[in-house]
């Protein structure tokens, strides 16, 4: 049923894609010969304006997206380049620890469980992650393979972490949050940067980036990087000792930014990578007594992407962007192998409607084509039926930003409509209201609906694995439907002074059709399938506060509270999801950035994560990281970083995935960076 529907919709696919490509070709051609060529006269004459008129013109902020009201009226936290550098984080996943409201737990040296507002796991499926506009969540299980999400960390401009649904703008899977990783324009990364280091977990890493200018307005950069990380410790329950989770990756990439004329800009960028990850995979025997055995596996990861984005600016209040990308990922281990190609076209147009409204609308098309097979070993314990599948996603959205009262009251209403080959059409509306009675205070309210569409896993899995203490035969359910959320949010921001600010948000999430595992036959082995048989409510509080104690000392404190209540509808649910027990209720963090004399910087963070009860439990822990940096000149800096300083090892998470969760160790590394 689902397949025939997806076959049918495929016939319609070529039309829109060709249409969009044609649109791009037309636009580019027309621009080439168009009158707005570089070097021509400015579009309007500023010298004809009076001095007081000149004094009222707002300056264009270079290479920065116009601020989206939907972001301001949302629980957003921005991790800056300075934060990343001074945290000592060596991966994007680790940098995310700085955002309040996120739960970031490392499972082994190369895997993480990251989620916002609950439902955390390796298979966490309610978070949408984008790198420079390219979606990096996998339709395999609607989650993110954090082991391949990387770039030169020095080239990241910022990471925007938006908690709560962003589906009306970003689409399905932006259920509990959206993470936008934005890299710097190549104009801002000119010159050479060489960095390298080593330590106890970081066996060795290094990167070279070069940025240059071809002509005025046309800049580029290219980088290569490599790292090799040591394995963690196996938990005592399986005998302890060093794990098999080593990790290495070679990666290279480029970005060019071309300001073709005042109104037109083109960005082209791409990355390619190849590496290896070690894991201990639990392989469940297909014969009685169906016992799992741990098998060390050397997996391979590889991939690449190419993205082009063309922006035409009509005025300060109006622009449009057409973006195309291609992404390839490959991964293989002992039991599973995946090839995936993704093609994506995205169009956005923003314009003012009268003096009080600003409209943004857009269209998108995505084709993802995969090939899933058994892995490098002989066991056929994890297969997908069918093994190959093409899925199309059509989407359209519109959002209207309305100024209800000049300066202090604004409303954003919008919706995204999508059509996917699993569940058909999905409508995801939202409404956001922001009230700014003064420049120091702002209060916002939001109500949104978001869906988490089914993945390959839920519809097509055919596997033997251990789930909730049972070694079961797990079969996909082609009738599995989207999980839905209606979220109610309230936020308040307060800038007490230029030195102190608070950001406070409250949410209540109402979920329906959540995923459960349901017993279909007693076996042996028992057969289990997936169904939408659970509802749930979650609520929580997130607080972030910045305090610039002195010109040399800056502090950040964050607190997260989360409560989850899930209800299975049928008693026949034999493997109730333990999501309720997988998330800490309380998380607390404190970060400090201190500029010492003699060009030294002393930075540190301490975070408390409450215990987790699921899967045998993870005790609460306090993690302390410290960094000592020395920048004797502007071109050189050296840093010494210590992580997990308080104990020599502890687990952060016990995953429900098929591989062994390891214990994080105390570690140290030194790093040197030259710029010239």
């Amino acid at each position, binding site marked *: 049923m689902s397949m025939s529907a997806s076959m049918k*919709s495929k016939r319609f696919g070529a039309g829109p894609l060709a249409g969009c490509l044609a649109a791009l070709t037309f636009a580019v051609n027309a*621009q080439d010969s168009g009158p707005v060529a570089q070097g021509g006269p400015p*579009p309007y004459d500023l010298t004809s304006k009076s*001095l007081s008129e000149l004094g009222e013109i*707002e300056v264009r902020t270079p290479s920065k997206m116009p601020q989206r009201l939907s972001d301001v009226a949302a629980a957003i936290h921005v991790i800056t380049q300075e934060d990343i550098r001074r945290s000592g984080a060596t991966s994007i996943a680790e940098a995310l620890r700085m955002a309040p409201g996120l739960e970031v737990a490392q499972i082994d040296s190369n895997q993480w469980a990251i989620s916002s507002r609950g439902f955390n796991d390796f298979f966490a499926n309610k978070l949408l992650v984008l790198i420079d506009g390219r979606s990096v969540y996998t339709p395999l299980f609607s989650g993110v393979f954090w082991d391949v999400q990387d770039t030169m960390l020095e080239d990241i401009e910022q990471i925007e972490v938006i908690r709560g649904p962003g589906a009306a703008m970003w689409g399905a899977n932006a259920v509990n949050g959206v993470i936008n990783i934005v890299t710097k324009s190549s104009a801002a990364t000119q010159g050479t940067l060489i960095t390298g280091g080593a330590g106890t977990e970081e066996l060795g890493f290094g990167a070279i980036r070069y940025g240059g200018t071809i002509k*005025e307005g046309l800049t580029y950069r290219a980088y290569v990087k490599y790292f090799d990380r040591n394995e963690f410790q196996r938990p005592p329950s399986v005998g302890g000792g060093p794990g098999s989770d080593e990790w290495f990756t070679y990666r290279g990439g480029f970005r060019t930014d071309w300001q073709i004329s005042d109104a037109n800009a083109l960005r082209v960028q791409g990355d390619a990578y190849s590496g290896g990850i070690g894991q201990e995979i639990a392989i469940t025997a297909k014969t009685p007594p169906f016992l799992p055995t741990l098998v060390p596996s050397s997996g391979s990861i590889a991939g690449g992407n190419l993205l082009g984005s063309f922006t035409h600016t009509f005025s300060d209040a109006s622009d*449009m962007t057409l973006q195309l990308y291609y992404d390839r990922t490959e991964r293989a281990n002992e039991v599973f192998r995946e090839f995936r190609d993704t093609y994506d076209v995205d169009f956005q147009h923003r314009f003012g409607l009268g003096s009080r409204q600003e409209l943004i609308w857009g269209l998108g098309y995505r084709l993802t084509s995969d090939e899933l097979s058994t892995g490098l070993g002989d066991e056929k314990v994890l297969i997908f039926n069918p093994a190959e599948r093409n899925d199309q996603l059509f989407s359209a959205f519109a959002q209207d930003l309305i100024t209800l009262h000049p300066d202090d009251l604004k409303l954003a209403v919008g919706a995204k409509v999508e059509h996917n080959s699993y569940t058909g*059409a999905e409508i995801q509306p939202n409404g956001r209201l922001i009230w700014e009675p003064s420049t120091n205070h702002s209060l916002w309210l939001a109500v949104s609906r978001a869906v988490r569409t089914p993945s390959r896993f839920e519809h097509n899995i055919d596997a033997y694995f251990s789930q909730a203490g049972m070694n079961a035969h797990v079969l996909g359910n082609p009738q599995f439907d989207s999980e839905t959320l209606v979220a109610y949010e309230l936020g308040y921001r307060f800038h007490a002074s230029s030195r102190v600010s608070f950001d406070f948000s409250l949410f209540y999430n109402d979920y329906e059709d959540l995923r459960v595992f349901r017993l279909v036959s007693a076996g042996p082995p028992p057969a289990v399938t997936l169904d939408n048989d659970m509802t749930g409510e979650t609520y929580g509080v997130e607080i972030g506060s910045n305090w610039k104690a002195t010109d040399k000392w800056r502090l950040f404190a964050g607190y997260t509270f989360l409560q989850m209540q899930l209800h299975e509808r049928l008693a026949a649910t034999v493997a109730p999801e333990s999501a309720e027990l997988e998330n800490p209720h309380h998380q607390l963090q404190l970060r400090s950035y201190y500029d010492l004399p003699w060009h030294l910087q002393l930075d540190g963070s301490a975070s408390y994560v409450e215990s987790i009860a699921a899967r045998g439990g993870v005790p609460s822990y306090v993690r302390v990281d410290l960094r000592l940096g020395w920048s004797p000149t502007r071109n050189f800096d050296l840093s010494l970083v210590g992580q997990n300083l308080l104990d020599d090892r502890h687990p952060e998470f016990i995953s429900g995935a098929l591989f062994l969760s390891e214990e994080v160790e105390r570690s140290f590394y030194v790093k040197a960076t030259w710029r010239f």
Partner: protein
Amino acid sequence: MIAAAKLRRSRWFPRLFSLACVLIAASLCAAAGDGASASGPAPGEYEIKAAFLFNFAKFVEWPPAALGENEPIRIGILGKDPFGPDLEKTIQGKKIGDHPVELERYADRLPQKLPHVLFICASEKKNQARILAQTNGTSTLTVSEADGFCEAGGIINFKRAERKVRFEINPKAGERQKFKLSSKLMGVALRVVDTVSIE
């Protein structure tokens, strides 16, 4: 399941989508075609500063000795030029009264014949006192973008006011020069600096 009420596997969406794509293609072509008539994006900081610099000259009345009939008004840039092509674009083919406008650039030393308007780049802040001593009492209007420029005896200093470009002015420093500065400038300035610094 409760999904029965939902629109499922409909055909209207892909069709509507195709139609919308055609509409986009058309609107893109139209947009690209009338690109010239669009007002363009907001100007950059130095586009605005270039326009200011040009317009300041309109508020100065030079004596015939300093500016003869049909003689060009010379705008000089001293130091590391932040304008890029913006200044050229701004003054290209323009006149103030019957005076054409010319641009001159100096690396680190002022020429014998001083310009009518001198923009002292931020790179020259350390030489500011020496430069002002040299221009003091001449017919040169000094402009800069360095904090404390007016207090140090400079005449006009650009100042960012959030996303806007404004300027501060020292009329006393203006009075010492061999020209007449319009009092209108004081009305528009973000701040009027009263201190006189005598070298």
